[in-house]
């Protein structure tokens, strides 16, 4: 019944609109005016609207920047992340400057040069000097941006990991797991064909290096100590996203990827700065199925002593096997 009523209302609304439009066009015919011709009046109105709403758009942008600034991610909590933040501030400033110069020009010109029958446009076909200027200036600016960007990229990607703490991050639908290499600092070999419900990471149990590995459900890191996360995926492409550290890397089945970084702020420090509820978190950032939105793992950055205490409590693989037997 409701559906029929809705349909009737919609139908009546359409009929009304049709009649209103028809009436306005007929009136126009009576007045011997073409109701669809753009008049000087129209140009004046639309020109004003261009100016006002165009500037309104800019005000809206500024409002958003002020109102929502506090929602943006806090300062980067890693070494390379700080460099990225510098580059980001520089690039953002650049594009905002260009935006706030060029956009008002567009709307102002639309207003200023609104047409009327008395005016004539200025027949200007081309100007090679201008073309040259506005090609060369962006080129120079962009060259600077590119060089700065590539330097930052190099610092983030080409990291000497010989002294880094290796941690494997393993991902599947819809869970993150991590594995620490234990005393020998070597991660045991693994193979996807060995994955079973009890051997979730597919670890080669004959590999001696695997015996002291520790599988954990949250990752602890030591502040200011370099770490390299090694990623493995079991089923589809996922992506490890640690926004506070400016870390992101796809986890691709059949491929091993990694990201090296050094955390600079402990969780305790972040809680002081951002509020007691703060936690470092790992999210999935590549569409991976129904629960893509709900895959998280907690990361904790702490002092060496706290870390050692925590790590000692984690069970090794051989411990787990013993308890299973």
């Amino acid at each position, binding site marked *: 019944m409701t559906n029929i009523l809705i349909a009737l209302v919609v139908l009546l609304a359409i009929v009304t609109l049709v009649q209103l*439009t*028809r009436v*306005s066009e007929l009136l126009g015919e009576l007045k011997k005016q073409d*109701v669809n011709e*753009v008049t000087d009046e*129209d*140009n004046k109105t639309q*020109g004003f609207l*261009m100016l006002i709403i165009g500037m309104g758009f800019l005000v809206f942008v500024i409002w*958003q920047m002020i109102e929502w600034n506090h929602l943006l991610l806090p300062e980067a909590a890693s070494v390379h992340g700080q*460099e990225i933040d510098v*580059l*980001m501030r520089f*690039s953002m400033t*650049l*594009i905002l400057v260009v*935006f706030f110069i060029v*956009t008002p020009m567009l*709307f102002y*010109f*639309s207003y200023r*040069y609104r047409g009327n029958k008395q005016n004539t*446009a*200025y*027949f*200007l*076909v*081309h*100007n090679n000097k*201008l*073309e040259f200027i*506005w090609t060369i200036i*962006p080129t120079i600016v*962009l060259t600077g*941006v*590119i060089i700065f*960007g*590539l330097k930052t*990229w*190099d610092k*983030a*990607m080409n990291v000497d990991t010989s002294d880094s703490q290796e941690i494997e991050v393993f991902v*599947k639908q819809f869970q993150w797991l991590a594995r620490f290499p234990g005393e020998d600092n070597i991660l045991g070999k693994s193979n*996807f064909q060995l*994955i079973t419900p009890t051997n979730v990471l597919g670890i080669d149990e004959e590999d001696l290096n695997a015996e002291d590995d520790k599988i954990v459900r949250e990752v602890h890191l030591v502040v200011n100590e370099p770490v390299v996360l090694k990623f493995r995926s*079991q*089923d589809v*492409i996922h992506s490890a*996203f640690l926004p506070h550290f400016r870390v992101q*890397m*796809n986890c*691709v*089945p*059949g491929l091993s990827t*990694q990201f090296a970084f050094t955390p600079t702020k402990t969780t305790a420090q972040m809680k002081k700065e951002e509020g007691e509820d703060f936690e470092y978190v790992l999210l999935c*950032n590549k*569409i991976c*199925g129904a*629960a*893509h939105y709900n895959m998280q793992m907690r990361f904790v950055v702490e002092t060496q002593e706290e870390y050692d205490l925590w790590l000692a409590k984690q069970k090794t693989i051989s411990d787990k096997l013993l308890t299973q037997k």
Partner: protein
Amino acid sequence: MSGHHNETFITKYIFSQDHKMIAKQFLITGMIMAILGMLMSAVFRVQLANPGESSILYNLLPGGWVNELGALSPDKYLALVTMHGTILVFWVLTAGLSGTFANFLIPLQIGARDMASGFLNMLSYWFFFIATVILVWSIYVEGGPASGGWTIYPPLSALPQAIPGSGTGMTLWLISITLFVVGSLLGGLNYIVTILNLRTKGMSMQRLPLTVWALLVTAILGVLSFPVLLSCGLLLVFDRSFGTSFYLSDIVVNGEVLHHLGGSPILFEHLFWFLGHPEVYIILLPALGIISEVISVNARKPIFGYKAMVASILVIGFLSFIVWGHHMFMTGMNPFLGSVFTFTTLLIAIPSAVKVFNYLATLWRANIRFTPAMLFAIAGVSAFITGGLTGLILGDSALDINVHDTYFVVGHFHIVMGLSAIYGMLAGVYHWFPKMYGKMMNKNLGYVHFWGTFICAYGVFFPMHFLGLAGLPRRYYENTAFPMFDGLTDINSIITFFALSGAVVQVIFLFNFIYSIFKGTKTVQNPWKSNTLEWTTPIERIHGNWPGDLPSVHRWAYDYSKPGAEEDFILQTVPLKEGEKEEH
């Protein structure tokens, strides 16, 4: 040559070989699919603003997409997002934009009777139509339509065990896209050959309107990049159905160890984005071409720097082939490769900037006539500026680390494609409606449509940049799983409000469009007082376009407000006067 064969209803309206009718077929199909795509976005925007709650809008969905509490189920949310992307990128902005305007404008603006092969042209529409039917059908199959994002990365898109939509729905998606690509290629071949071979006397390449240049480069991009999508999709078909391992390796899903070994999902990404990046320029260039035309006619001024505009179209076309890796910065690729792609991507900013400055110079000291088309064209330039600038952030690999796959990307590509390209398309519809249907669209309804759209559209997509900089990933069913996103609910509500309002505003356009076809005021031959050849054809549109001989062209397309002329425009067919020099 005009109207020499008897036309039945079928040959005139259905299996037409006349480029003008085929153009309208593309337009109407594109518009219907746009409505479908927009409804999908309305549904998932409602979910994002009111996570886990039921909504009256969900009644539009097939049964089984909502759970017992009436909430949208998460994998169907992904299905909606996937189909929304597929429909809008391919069906609306490629077929609906290029298919319509290339078919309509090319023969008319170059002075040809029709396309080089009317038969192949007709085939290109009907392949597209069948592709459409199959895609829409896939929404209703068991398991739902494809759900791995419009980018359909394997293994997710190869394994029905990973998400239900990767079963029958994905198979139908692949069949549909194959037919779509074949149709596009048939069209593209026609466009290139027609532009090169069938220009009328005096229509040298330097006298072509910018719309035709843009459509030519677009067609070349399509011809070179769509076949790679075809190959990419074919290999995926084999991985899904015939046990090959092109993209798959090391997979354990639902407790089952799969036999695939040695394949690489990254190979898929390379092949896909080799099309995927030129694809966005296939979408953008025709829109920019239309914007150039509409701005020049309504500013009563030549487009500033015609040669520079042509050069920038060519450079953008060429560069678009060597930037695809910027979609893959975070795949673990060799960092050097990442540097190369950053370099080429930021280079593309240069010809884009040149275009924007040329548009500004065109508006300077112009005599602007604000038709609804002109308003959309100017808004298209604004969106190109806004969206293009955020591209500089995304193209920089180091910055991409923290914004890749977040709402920052969603904001960027919606502003360049969803705003700039759609505005170009709308400008084209408003501008060439009189030529297509012999009637005028209602001007005041057009004004209301424009301002409503402009305000709502920026209201939807600009805030998304902030969501992205706050770390919010895209394709998330809801944000409630992470406390760090709790502060973003207000922004989501604002976006949804503008999205739903914007959707309602489009009803005004649809009403105007349909009403004007049947009851609009009759137009004159050249309502916009434009120079280009299409306005020298009769209002009622005939087969073969011109009743007598084909027109001869004596000048370029942009003699507006030329000093010494009687009116503020000079048709391309008017010969040069004594002592008059030709402009370029």
